[in-house]
């Protein structure tokens, strides 16, 4: 009880724990724990044979945080900024990392990016396919029903939202396209 000075004893003794659990207590001494102490100054331990790394060439202009003094000597080149989402992201990168707006603009740009690429895919030989790309077919060959029913899972209560998040923008987009088409057709007929 915390109402008295001593801490409760664990239900098993160290001997019992050592007998039951392989490796019990092997790192009991903090000196055996690799991240103790938290900081250990040892620049020679990493394998680096430079004090400051040679710079990776910047072949395409690369965005960077305003909290960096300069472009880091090495950087990722996975998906350079492009199109409308790229412009939005550039705006976000003008803001400091402390600003919520920076991250919310980036999240907004992510949604624009997805839409741009979905639309662009329709003029390619491999348009986006929400069925194969969501892996939803695994519901049928990986026990989709029995994995959920009667399992008392907390997440089942909000699973119904996932199809809305995935398919919702497609339905809204299709609806908007149909509405625009009908409006254009009506205007053409009224001429």
């Amino acid at each position, binding site marked *: 009880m915390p109402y008295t000075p001593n801490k409760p004893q664990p239900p098993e003794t160290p001997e019992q724990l050592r007998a039951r659990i392989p490796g019990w207590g092997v790192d009991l001494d903090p000196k055996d724990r690799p991240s103790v102490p938290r900081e250990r100054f040892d620049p020679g331990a*990493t394998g680096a044979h430079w004090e400051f790394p040679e710079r990776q060439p910047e072949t395409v202009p690369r965005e960077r945080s305003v909290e960096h003094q300069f472009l880091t000597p090495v950087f990722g080149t996975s998906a350079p900024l492009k199109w409308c989402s790229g412009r939005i992201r550039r705006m976000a990168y003008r803001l400091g990392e402390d600003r919520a707006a920076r991250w919310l603009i980036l999240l907004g740009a992510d949604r624009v990016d997805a839409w741009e690429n979905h639309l662009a895919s329709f003029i390619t030989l491999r348009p986006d396919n929400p069925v194969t790309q969501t892996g939803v077919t695994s519901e049928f060959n*990986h026990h989709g029903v029995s994995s959920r029913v009667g399992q008392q899972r907390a997440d089942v209560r*909000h699973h119904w939202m996932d199809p809305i998040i995935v398919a919702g923008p497609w339905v809204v987009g299709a609806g908007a396209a149909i509405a625009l088409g009908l409006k254009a057709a009506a205007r053409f007929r009224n001429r």
Partner: protein
Amino acid sequence: MRAMVYRGPYKIRVEDKQMPSIEHSNDAIIRVTKAAVCGSDLHLYHGMMPDTRVGMTFGHEFVGVVHEVGASVRSLKPGDRVMVPANIYCGSCFYCARGLYSNCHNVNANATAAGALYGYSHTVGGYDGGQAEYVRVPFADVGPSVIPEWLDDEDALMMTDALATGYFGAQLGEITEGDTVVVFGAGPVGLFAAKSAWFMGAGRVIVIDHLNYRLEKARTFAHAETYNFVEIDDIVVHLKRATDYFGADVAIDAVGAEADGNVIQHVTAAKLKLQGGSPVALNWAIDSVRKGGVISVMGAYGPIYSAIKFGDAMNKGLTLRMNQAPMKRQWPRLLEHIKAGYLKPNEIVTHRFPLEDIAEAYHVFSAKLDGCIKPVIIVGDQ
């Protein structure tokens, strides 16, 4: 080459992508043999992490064979079988020189608030990941290590993140002999954290989750006492009662941004993206640990604010410790433990998918179908 490519929230596909090339003299190109999907990949997959760009390849857990090395690489050669830590780091900046490899300042141009990881959005550097046939590995003399002959590929794969992170989480808990440790989340990191807590002398290890098949694994793999929070009215009160009204000495959050258990928190964070993460597990950790206790946060959260109960943490005098794990720093000790037979990391692997079926792998893992704990992607031969 064939590679997993992100197409927007909940949507990925495998497509032909340009081979990565040497972009810096200390780069290596690795031919990936096996990769894993991490629970934190699901935050990207669900569109939660800012600046996750369409066209990016995910995957920060992978092993493979060296295919090509840059001019200044000294420690690796083509043909070496290597494991690559999830962190990308230079080895020489202020932080790397002090062992804080996950906080490297020379590799993430996009943000100073985070280091860099493979395949984990531009917020952590914009590097492609290893769920592909080939991947660019910067600072090849610093990050990757040759896999010892005796170590299985899948065991090495678990070392690249899940095992090293779980073990690191237990270390941040500052466990002393006889401590009661409660781990929130029985996913791969939680299972390894629970197992590691015993190495550090815990007297009692309790694991909390809502998935019974994962709790079963926590009992058999990590020798833990388990509770399903769905079956209990108030898990915090239950933990107080179970610990003689003390609370645990140490609590480890191994859940992170998509925690369940409070619908409002989950929906505002995971579905509406209005928080950097749903802090349900973290708040339970704060409330269920004893006064003066330690919280270790291993769950991943995004850079936006989250509704965390700092008042309780302050008034209870808690120590909150957290970081992305510096993976490679843990490796020598973990190799000793594996060799001694104290743990077999690939016992948590439940599913194996070919790269071409990776969309199914993500769905099965995300929807927790089929008893999935850890899916491995088989990319190529050794």
